[in-house]
């Protein structure tokens, strides 16, 4: 059930209405039922996976929570240290969950990679292969559940005794299939207090609905339209020169931002309607002034997850420079692999790792050069230049992410640098990238609108609902009705269009 489907249009109001009018005690159960129904609408069988993951992490964390953390305590029977048992339980939980994730997401990729490697030295390929459908959102809920276990292990959170509430934490439908990957300290506590939530808060509901509307706009009006340009160029890059290929890469950068941001925004809006607060996953990432800044703004929930559960345990910043670079590279490579079972994702993660390391290495010399040249670091031009440079690096990396294979990415990049065709900027060629001129103009207007909203968020740290709340009634209504009409009219859905699934479902 996609957020922009007729099914969800029926499902969501029914869930909210019953949620609002059921006795408080039944709220958690009702949301759990709704969440499982939501998940099972993709493939009922895969509900077993999320149930297993829930049971394993819940019982594991309960066990971890019951064993004292104190290192001085010893188990009198086994002689094994108690921290050791706790760690063993945690490892077991990780093995089971990551095992499921590996099997469904990476097994075929691993076999193919092994086959390719042994093929190079003349060994016949292994034939084992499982043609399994990737369970929707498996990476998201697995990471959320594992994050919770680590929090319990570290003693930062208490183990949740109620299986019902914990199951709802793992499967909460607004963020189940594509995040944000919530932290137990944030969402679990809200679920614990579900009975106290003031459900019929009109202002909050309207805010939530505005967020959902904005998310829908981003998805069906902008993302699905700009996707046509990206798909056209990436499908047949040999037809285009430098300008077309750069346009294709920019189009994909916008597509993935709008698409994923759309999902997160709808998720936050839906949760807000029901009285829950989910973390903001995107904070105007294309206004970032460095790669490090970009990662503070892009897919924030995943970045912070990797920071807290991978990078810091590896040693983080509190180690030698070489070790720190290694930690960064490992984190980025794993992050790339998390996005998909292909070497292109790994390369994308690796490239961002290189960006970070090179950026760090160049920081001092560049600062010195800047000082010598009396560069004013407070000037708009300086910040603007940094934003543009960061965006160029990010867009370039997206080519690896979008390409079908590393070979295809190599061809794309190679051609982009060797086929200069500036005349295509003037002869109308850019109107032949899959969108009719009228559609291209619609897209440009919509992108301008997105830019304005993001600019306001960047400058004032203010989201659309808050921005609208400060305006006069007629303006609020005009904006909202305008958005509804734009979604209904310009949205890519229905018989004529085949709206693509949200990109991040596959990760």
């Amino acid at each position, binding site marked *: 059930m996609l957020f922009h489907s*007729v099914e969800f249009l029926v499902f969501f109001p029914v869930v909210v209405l019953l949620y609002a009018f059921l006795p408080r005690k039944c709220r958690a159960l009702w949301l759990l039922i709704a969440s499982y129904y939501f998940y099972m609408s993709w493939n009922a069988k895969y509900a077993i996976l999320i149930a297993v993951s829930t049971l394993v992490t819940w019982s594991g964390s309960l066990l971890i929570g019951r064993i004292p953390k104190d290192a001085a305590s010893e188990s009198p029977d086994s002689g094994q240290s108690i921290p050791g048992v706790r760690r063993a339980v945690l490892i077991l939980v990780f093995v089971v969950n990551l095992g499921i994730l590996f099997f469904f997401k990476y097994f075929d990729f691993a076999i193919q990679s092994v086959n390719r490697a042994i093929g190079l030295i003349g060994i016949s390929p292994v034939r084992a292969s499982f043609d399994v459908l990737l369970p929707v959102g498996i990476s998201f809920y697995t990471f959320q559940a594992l994050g919770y276990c680590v929090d319990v292990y570290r003693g930062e959170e208490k183990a949740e005794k109620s299986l019902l509430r914990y199951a709802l934490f793992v499967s909460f439908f607004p963020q189940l299939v594509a995040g944000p990957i919530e932290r137990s300290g944030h969402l679990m506590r809200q679920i614990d207090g579900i009975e106290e939530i003031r459900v019929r808060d009109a202002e909050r509901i309207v805010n939530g609905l505005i967020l959902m509307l904005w998310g829908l706009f981003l998805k069906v009006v902008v993302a699905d339209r700009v996707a046509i340009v990206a798909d056209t160029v990436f499908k047949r890059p040999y037809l285009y020169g430098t300008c077309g290929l750069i346009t294709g890469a920019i189009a994909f950068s916008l597509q993935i931002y709008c698409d994923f941001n759309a999902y997160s925004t709808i998720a936050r809006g839906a949760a807000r309607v029901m009285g829950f607060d989910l973390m903001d996953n995107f904070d105007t990432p294309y206004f970032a002034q460095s790669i490090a800044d970009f990662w503070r703004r892009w897919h924030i929930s995943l970045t912070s997850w990797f920071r807290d559960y991978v990078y810091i345990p590896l040693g983080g910043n509190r180690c030698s420079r070489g070790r720190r670079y290694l930690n960064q590279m490992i984190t980025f490579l794993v992050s790339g692999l998390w996005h998909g079972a292909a070497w292109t994702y790994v390369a994308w993660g690796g490239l961002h790792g290189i960006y970070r390391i090179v950026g760090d290495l160049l920081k001092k010399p560049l600062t010195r050069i800047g000082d010598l040249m009396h560069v004013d670091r407070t000037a708009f031009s300086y910040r603007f230049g940094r934003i543009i440079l960061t965006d160029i690096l990010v867009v370039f990396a997206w080519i690896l992410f979008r390409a079908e294979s590393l070979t295809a990415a190599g061809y794309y990049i190679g051609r982009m640098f060797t086929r200069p065709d500036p005349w295509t900027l003037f002869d109308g060629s850019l109107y032949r990238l899959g969108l*009719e001129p009228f559609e291209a103009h619609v897209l440009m207007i919509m992108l301008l609108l997105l830019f304005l909203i993001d600019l306001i968020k960047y400058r004032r740290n203010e989201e659309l609902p808050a921005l609208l709340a400060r305006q006069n009634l007629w303006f609020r209504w005009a904006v909202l*009705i305008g958005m*509804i*009409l734009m979604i209904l009219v310009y949205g890519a859905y229905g*018989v*004529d*269009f085949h709206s693509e699934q949200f990109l991040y479902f596959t990760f």
Partner: protein
Amino acid sequence: MKQTGKAIRILLFAVVAALCIAGAYRILSWKDTMGDYLSSAEQLYATPRDLVDVLFVGSSHCYAGVNPDLLWRDFGIAAFDMAISGQDKPSSLYYTKEALKSQSPKVIMVDLLATTFEEGVPGNVYRNMLSMRSSPDQVRMVLEEPVEEKADYILKWPVIHSRYRELKAYDFVSNEYSRYGRGYCYRFAANEVIHRPGTESMEDTTLISDGNRRWVDSFIRLAEKKGASLHMIILPYEMSIEDKMIFNGVQDYLAEKGIPCIDFNCMMSTLDIRYLTDFMDEGHLNYYGGAKVTNYLGQFLRDTYGIENHAGEPAYAMWDKSLKYGEHLVAREESRAIFEPNEYMDLLLSLEDLTIVLRMDGDGTGTQFDLPGAVSAIGLDPSFARKTGIAIVDRGTVLPEVPRAGEELYLNELSFQDMLSITRDDEDLVIEVNGEELFEPYDGLGVYVYDRLLGEPWQTRIFY
């Protein structure tokens, strides 16, 4: 109090939003604007209750083959073509039901072509499902259609919203003909059809399919329930052997049930329908072929079912208007073959609602025609044809000098979309419609005719 205020605001917002969406739907909804995708649904909905005596149901064969305007002109029969391109079985059945909600025809004549459709062609399905008003029957029809996106077609919006790319004037301003047309589509092109002799007399039969049997049975029940006589027809086209075998099977079943059927493919020579001149293409008759079929049907309906003659009755003004529209189309078509200015002017004189712009260049002495006689036929002074000048005859009235002396510009709003302008350029006068110049200076008489009823111009003519 605060809560009530909030509730009122939310309610008001919902109302305003709903009104805006309804307005957008009105613009985006699929409409028949006499384009290639004809559906007479809008014309049906515009018809006052209980006027239709004979309802013809079918696909493009129907709207090309049976001309209700001629049935009206020659027999006073109030007929209507409930016809949609590619009308398949569910569509023909449910559109008949739709028609019977407001009409009580004495005879329902259904084209059997739908029995040869096994699969819905997407384009056909599109117009068949979108032109019916939303109702339980529309839902049932969509559910029976062989399409995957049933919910989209039931809701309509998911299909029609993407029409923003193809919006035309008729999406904003209603097409007049949709308010009174009787379902016929005028097409005059004649293309020779290579006929395969013998197909029409073939006796090989394909046993009637379950789907076709159910469809026939549904029509029988429907006609019985409404007290109408059911009569099947097969309109002329260059049918395949497979189609003929299906028709034979269906006709056998109809005979069993006592339902009469006329196969016009077996009457081609009787009706003098010619493969050279009476077909638009292999599948469709043109206006001239349709006139022959219609003439036969008129006599048949009058003689067999005693259909009443309503000619002259004010309630049937819609039929008069539709006939007039058809006559204008026929006149425009026939004017193309007229090369004599007097004859041309006589034709113009026989019609109302024309704006005629005449431009005389030179003194007319070099022409082979009697130009003074021609212009006097439409009310101009014969001296007009003896010197360079412009004249306008607007709906039968000769306008005084345009532009008047001292004026630089004359404007005449021909329709909502078309503007006639005459501007003075030094000594010369430039005649334009929507900024396009009508005549190049040429020794002789130029005639531009704008048909206000059709909302379109005729072909510009120059007699020299």
